[in-house]
Structure formats: structure tokens, C-alpha cells
């Protein structure tokens, strides 16, 4: 039987095709923009609960595979294979603490090599350990306790138990997962997706690329620091230099270790803008592998847009998911400030509200509390081409972003923007250092989590028509020059052909 080897296998964690917007939209675009290439997609999800696909897979995706990082836990068999817990622990710690790529190879070998049965499985032919053997056997317990002693000997063992099962369970799930044959494995983040791509590329003797929109380790760090499901078991007080490891540190160390191993093993590492490369370098990425490929947009979609001038009210819009990382609450607080100067302002929050119902409810409560019912509207998902003509200013209040498409899209429509100083927002709005020709300011960049600054910048634009027109023009020129879909797609095409050759 001949193997169906695709050109590119995309490996993506926790988004496409199950979550709409952001990276998922970009990925859908990327695949459709390479019609001559045949793709496979491996989507990593937290568990195996059925999910609805939010995207129809493009025609050039010939294989789709889902991989649950926490499959249903089964009890290890009594006749399970004999595993070496100490060796497992040593490899795990090499990966966890140092990001040693050879440790990943050793763990992949451990997870996939047929082994003779243990004392009660002497009659069995050598067999590959299953997931339960790797995370719930006596050897796994030995490995877990050795990892605990090395990583967090003063922390709660019970908490470590669950942390270890989650981190290592996900790792072994991907190391044991089948690999669709491909010539290039392209991970859309580090973390588990990156590890899978590295492992698959080694197994298939193929090439591996990693693209990071945001820096995965940074985003995980933010998530982990804010997470209320992680208990702090060590009373650290104000001792920020306390070297004792607690659960948040252990998770962060794991993701950093994963990133180091991935950067060391990948053939190409791309970022959306130069500032992100410094983070990648910090975790060991070599300059020779690094490349910047900015996002681009389809200018044709926005060419016919004419901004409405005769409107009953000035309109400010935020286009994005209602989730904490977008800091929608900051926008609501800013709306209250803006209304003081521009009483008839209308603030639209345009995007899905179903991803984090608790946060959406908190935002609605804040709107009610500030009596902003006539000012702030949650519209839900809308077609961006329909909504852009109504906007006077586009606002982005995110705590973390990479290169937000919505700013590029607003820029293509000639709409000035106010955004927080995250990701490449400053480059898009104010222009990169040494921009030639210099197009000038396209809006304002303000510190994140500062509703007052957001409000001041928005009011400046709303109350000065000339400034608004000037900024809108600058945005349009910059996007048309540097951020087109065609330019971005051809750079990815070149990346793939370079790797395949």
C-alpha cells in the first residue's frame, strides 16, 4: 500500500478548526492561499469531547486528524510492560528543566518501543506501552516522585500529582499519536503542537517549521499567573526571589523546556514581527533559523468600502472575542470616560461571546453598573466588511496580541486605530523604525490595561476630524505597502518550497 504523503502537515493546538477568529482565520487563509500544495491538519485539543468545527476544511486539506491531549484515563493492565521509571524521570527532567531535544527522542522511544511484559505479563509478546502504562503504572509513579523531588520538593504533593499527570499525560499522548506522512510539519505554536511537529518530522525524516503569532510561552505564562484553578501551596509573601518551585513555576518551566527543545529541533522559526524574535532568542532559537513573515490581508475585500459620513452618532468599534485576554473590561471603563466628552458616542463590541460565558456575564454586569446600556452594545459576530463603514475609530484593548488582523483590515478601510502597546500594534499604527517612505501616524498606541489612556486617545480622534482623516490615510497607505495578503502568502509559499527542496 502506498502512503499518501502530503506536502505540509499543519499542527495546531486549541484553535483551528474548532475556535473561530484569530489564528484560526489566519490558518484557514494560509491553506487556501497555497492551492497547489496538499495539506494535512492535526488539531490538538484538551480532551476528546466532541466539538463542532467552525470552519469548512479547504479542498486542498486531504487529511484531518484530531489528537486529545488528555484521552480517557484507563487503569494500567496487570500484564503491562516493564518500564524503567528512573530513566523516564531523567528524560522528563532533561526536557522539563533544560529543553534537551535528545530527551524528547528518548521519551518518544520509551513511548513507542515494544517492551517485554512485567512480572505478571511474562507470557506476553513484547508490546508498546499504552498511555495508561506511561502515566499510571508503578514506573510512572516512580518517575512522578523523582520529578517532584527535583522540581518542587517543598510544594503540595497532591497538587504536583495533578500537574504531572496533565503535563506528562499530554506529552505522552502526542508522542504515541499516529503521524500523517508529510514533507514539512508546520506547527502554529511551540508547546504541545511544536513538540508533535518536531517528533513527526524526526519520525518521517521531514522538515519542521514553527510559526508563532504570539509567543506561546508568554501567553501561557499570562494564563498561568492569572489562573485561579492553580493553588499556591507555598507561603511566599513578598519573596519574589523565592527559589522554591510551586505549581505555576512548574507549568511555566515545562512550557519553556518544550520551547527550547522545539527551537533547537525546528528548521525554520517564523514570527509576525521582529520584536517577538527576542523572546525566541532568549529560549535558544538560532538567528539562522529566524524569519519574520507579517500577516497580510486581501485588499480587494476592502477596496470598495466607503466610510459613512452622515451618521446620527460617532461609532467606535472593537472587533474580537469577548475573552479576558482582550481586556474588554478596560474598553467598557474607557467607554464611560469617552462618553463624558462625546455623550452620543456608540461603542460596538463585535465578536463571539460564547467562548467564556462567565467573562461575558462579568462584562455585561460592568456595562449595567456604569449605566452604559445606551452606549455599549455587544453585537455578536458580524461580517467585517459590513461593519467597517460605520466605524470612526477602531479600538483594541488586548493584554496580548501578535499582529492583529483587525487593525490591518481597519487600516485597509482607512479607519484610524487606537490599540494597546502589544505585539506589532505600534509598528502597524506608527510605522516601523526607519519606515520608508514614512506614512506618519495612523492612530495612537497606549499602554495596556490603561482605560484612561484608551479614552484620551479615542476622544482625540473623535473630536478632531482632520486628525482622524490624516490617520486613516496613513493607515491605508501603510497596509497597502507592507501588509498585503499576496506578499504574506508568497513568503509562506517560499518557506514551504525552501523546506521541501
Amino acid at each position, binding site marked *: 500500500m502506498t502512503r499518501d504523503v502530503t506536502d505540509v502537515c499543519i499542527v495546531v493546538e486549541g484553535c483551528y478548526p474548532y475556535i473561530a477568529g484569530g489564528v484560526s482565520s489566519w490558518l484557514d487563509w494560509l491553506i487556501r492561499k497555497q492551492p497547489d500544495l496538499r495539506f494535512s491538519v492535526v488539531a490538538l485539543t484538551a480532551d476528546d469531547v466532541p466539538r463542532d468545527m467552525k470552519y469548512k476544511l479547504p479542498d486542498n486539506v486531504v487529511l484531518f486528524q484530531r489528537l486529545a491531549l488528555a484521552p480517557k484515563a484507563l487503569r494500567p493492565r496487570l500484564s503491562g510492560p516493564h518500564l524503567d521509571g528512573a530513566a523516564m524521570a531523567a528524560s522528563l527532567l532533561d526536557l522539563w528543566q533544560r529543553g534537551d531535544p535528545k530527551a524528547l527522542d528518548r521519551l518518544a522511544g520509551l513511548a513507542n518501543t515494544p517492551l517485554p511484559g512485567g512480572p505478571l505479563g511474562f507470557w506476553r509478546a513484547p508490546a508498546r506501552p499504552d498511555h495508561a502504562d506511561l502515566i499510571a503504572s508503578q514506573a510512572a509513579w516512580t518517575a512522578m516522585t523523582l520529578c517532584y523531588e527535583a522540581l518542587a520538593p*517543598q510544594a*503540595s504533593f497532591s497538587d504536583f500529582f495533578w500537574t504531572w499527570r496533565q503535563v506528562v499525560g499530554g506529552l505522552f499522548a502526542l508522542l504515541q499519536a499516529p503521524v500523517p506522512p508529510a514533507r514539512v510539519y508546520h506547527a502554529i505554536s511551540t508547546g504541545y503542537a511544536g513538540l508533535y511537529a518536531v517528533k513527526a518530522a524526526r519520525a518521517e525524516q521531514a522538515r519542521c517549521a514553527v510559526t508563532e503569532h504570539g509567543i506561546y510561552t508568554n501567553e501561557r505564562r499570562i494564563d498561568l499567573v492569572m489562573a485561579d484553578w492553580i493553588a499556591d501551596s507555598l507561603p511566599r509573601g513578598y519573596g519574589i526571589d523565592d527559589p522554591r518551585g510551586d505549581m505555576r513555576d512548574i507549568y511555566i518551566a515545562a512550557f519553556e523546556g518544550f520551547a527550547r527543545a522545539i527551537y533547537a529541533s525546528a528548521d525554520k522559526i517564523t514570527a509576525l514581527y521582529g520584536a517577538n524574535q527576542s523572546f525566541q532568542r532568549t529560549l535558544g532559537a538560532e538567528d539562522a533559523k529566524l524569519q519574520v513573515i507579517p500577516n497580510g490581508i486581501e485588499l480587494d475585500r476592502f477596496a470598495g468600502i466607503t466610510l459613512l459620513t452622515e451618521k446620527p452618532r460617532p461609532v467606535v468599534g472593537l472587533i474580537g472575542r469577548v475573552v479576558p485576554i482582550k481586556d474588554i473590561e478596560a474598553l467598557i471603563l474607557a467607554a464611560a470616560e469617552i462618553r463624558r466628552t462625546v455623550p452620543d458616542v456608540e461603542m460596538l463590541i463585535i465578536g463571539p461571546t460564547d467562548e467564556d460565558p462567565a467573562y461575558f456575564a462579568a462584562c455585561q454586569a460592568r456595562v449595567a453598573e456604569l449605566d452604559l446600556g445606551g452606549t455599549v452594545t455587544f453585537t455578536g459576530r458580524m461580517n467585517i466588511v459590513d461593519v467597517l463603514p460605520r466605524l470612526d475609530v477602531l479600538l483594541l484593548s488586548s493584554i496580548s496580541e501578535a499582529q492583529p488582523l483587525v487593525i490591518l483590515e481597519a487600516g485597509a478601510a482607512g479607519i484610524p486605530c487606537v490599540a494597546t502597546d502589544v505585539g506589532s500594534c505600534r509598528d502597524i499604527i506608527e510605522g516601523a523604525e526607519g519606515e520608508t517612505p514614512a506614512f506618519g501616524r495612523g492612530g495612537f498606541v497606549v499602554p495596556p490595561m490603561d482605560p484612561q489612556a484608551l479614552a484620551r486617545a479615542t476622544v482625540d480622534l473623535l473630536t478632531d476630524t482632520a486628525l482622524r482623516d490624516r490617520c486613516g490615510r496613513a493607515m491605508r497607505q501603510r497596509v497597502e505597502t507592507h501588509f498585503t495578503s499576496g506578499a504574506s502568502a508568497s513568503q509562506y509559499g517560499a518557506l514551504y518550497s525552501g523546506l521541501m527542496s
Partner: protein
Amino acid sequence: MTVGPLTRLDWMLDSALLAPIRRSLAAFVVAAGPWMVAVAAIAFASWTVEPVIGPQAAEDFRLAVIYAFALAPLASAPISTVAARRISAGLMPRAQVGGLFIVAAGLSGLAAQALALLVAVGLGLRDAEIAVALVFLTGAAAVMWTGFALMTALREFRFLIASFSIGIALAILLFLGLGQSKPDVASLIWFFTFGVTACAGLLAVRLQVWQVWQVSSDFGLAGAVKMLGDEGRRSYALAVGAVLGILGVWIDKWVFWFSPGGLESSAGFANFPDYDSAMFLAHISVIPSLAALMAFHDGDLRAAMLRFRSVLAGGRTLTAVRQAVVQVGTSVRSGLFMILLTQLAITSALILLAPVVAQSLGMRLDQYLTLRTGLAGAFMHVAFLASSGILLLCNRQWQFLWLQGLFFGLNLMLSLFFISWLGTSANAFLASSAICAGIAMSSAFAAVGQLDYLHQLAENDGLYYPR
């Protein structure tokens, strides 16, 4: 405020002087309660009605009771063990226990009746009235046994003792009141069934079984059936192990009953009096240890386990967890050592006194030898039971099942071997008990030594989906 005499008595029994006696009595009843009912019935029957109805009819009555009390646990053990496990794990509110009792006791009772019917037909009992009475007594005993298991899981020992006492008193009153009117064997069995049923009924009242039919209850019988089924699927190794454990205790007797030397009573019950009477005494000799084990599990061991769980749940370090494991191990070793040492002293004394006992009961030499071997075997069997209990504490259900199966198989094969080689002897029971006690004890101590691993990971049922 005035208090009634019962409350006063309760206070007195809770005093520093009398509380240990009360706890010992409770443990005694919980550990050996149903068998004490049987022993008391047999003793009273022999004492009160044998002169009236004659020795053959009295023998039929005694055998009917023994058959019923041998068959009832076979039917009730798998069901009541699973149901009690659900309760003792703290997985169901008190208000739902009544529904669970109805389902578990109903299933146990029906299964026991079916089993008794099979045995009655298989043996070809000559008297249909005795056969019918046997079937009902077996069913009632299974219901009582199930109630005992559930009340023990709820730790409601006081009411358990009270219901047991009232039930046995009713049976005795019937014997005393009606025994002199020359009743037939079936009537005697029905008197006894009445006492057992009364005990089971009182347990049902205490468990508030009517709650399951209340309109406000969202936990009906269907919910109880589902819960029992789900738990049964999770704990079937435990249920099968319990059945094998009971079969293991009886299999040597059954081999003798159906051997060429076996006898048949006038009603048609198979038996082997020479072996049965000696082994009956041997088994009774370990009731103090069973009671002590019960008290140990509910006292020191329970406290040590609570400390261990509290260390885990309290977010302590692995070092602290391991210290708690060591404390549980120390508690297990010292508890078992004290119980087995005491039992060893009792067994040794009884072995030395065996000639006197045999003479006073009119035993022959082979019975006397069987009694001595049986006493030693019963001691080993207690050690086996105690170790099996520790394995269950560590949730080693499969190891428990394997050991009970080994005991059953060894006792069966060695009984067949010894009966053809030596004739009447308790060597098979002694040898199989000793071998299994050795294996179980080493397994139990090994399990306690890795309690952290077993409790948190390997035997943590909450972690796993069924394969």
C-alpha cells in the same frame, strides 16, 4: 428536662468504665452477629424442643438453619459488599440508603431463595414443607445479612445490636412458647424465620425505606438499581472475591458431605457430623479475633487512615505523605500483631484443652484430632481474613479476588486429596489457610508500604474509566 431510662442507660454505657465493653460487644455482634443467631437457635432448639420432637427432627432443624446460613451469604455477599462500599466511600446521602437497601436486600433475598430452591431440589428434600421453609429462611437471612452490611457501613452499631437482640428474643420466645406443643420441623424453621425477618424489618425501619416512595424524592428505585449496577461494574472483583471467600470456607465441608462417608438426615440434608461438629467448634474459637478485627478497623486503623487522607488533602509534601504512610503501616502491624497474638494464645489454650472438650462432648479420637487441626486452621484463616481486610483497605481488589480464589481452589483440591489419603482430617483447611495467610500477609504489608501510590494512583477508582 427529664430523661427516660433508655437515655440514662445509654449514658451509663458511654461512661469511661463501660464504653470499652460496649464497643467490644458491638464489634462482637457486628463480626459474628448472624452466626450468633444461628448458634443461639440451634442451642435453644436442642435445649427446648429436642426432648419433645426427638433427635432426628432436631437434627433436621439444625441442618436447615446451617444450610440457610451457608447459602444466604453466598447470595448476599456480592450485592451487599458492593452496596456497602458505595456507602462507606461517602458517595451517597443518608436519605438514599433506604432505596439502596430495598434494591440490595430484594436482590439478595431473591437470589438466596433461588439458590435454596436449587439446593432443595438438588438434594431431593423429602418434606416439601421443610423445603419451602428453608427457601424463606434463606431469603430472610440474606436480607438480614444485607442490612447488617449496610448498617456497618453507616456505622450505626447501636441500632444494629438492638434490632439483632429483638429479633433473636422474638425467635426464642416463640421456641419457648410454642416449642412444647410438639411442632414439626417446618414450624420451627418458620419460628426462626420470623425472628430473622423481625430483625431485617427493624433494620428497614431504621433505614427509612419509605423515603424512596416519597414524591419529593428524586432518587427512586430505578436510581438505586442504576447506582448498584454502576458500582457493581466498578467493584465486581470485590464482589466475586467475597463469594469465593465464603465458598472457600465451606468447600471442605461440602467435600466431606458428598464423600462416600457423608450422611443424609431424615429430611434429606447431606452432612458429615464427625467433621462438622469439630469444625463448628474450631470456627467459633476465632469469633473474639473477628470482633477485635472489627474494632481495630473501626478504631485505630480508621484514625490512621483519616490522618493519612488529611495529609494528602491538606497539600502537604511527599515527605509528610510518606510519614503518614509509615504511621498507617505501624498501626497495621501493631494491631494485627496484638490480635493474632491474643488469638494464638486462645487457640493454643484450646488445643491444650482439646482432650477435655472432646471428652465432654463425647467426641471420638478422629474428631479430637480434627478439632485440634481445625483450631490451628481457624487461627490461620483469621490471619488470612485480617490480611485480606488490609488489602481491601488499600483497595487491592484484584489481589483480594486472586487470593480468595486461591484459597477456594486450594481448599477444594487439598480436601479431595486428604479425604482419599487420610480420611477425616482438617489438614486441607489448615494447609490452604496457612499458605494463603502467608501470601496475603506479605501482600498486605507490601500494599500498606506503598499506600501513597495505591491510594493516589494505582487503586484510585475515581481516576479511571472502565477498559
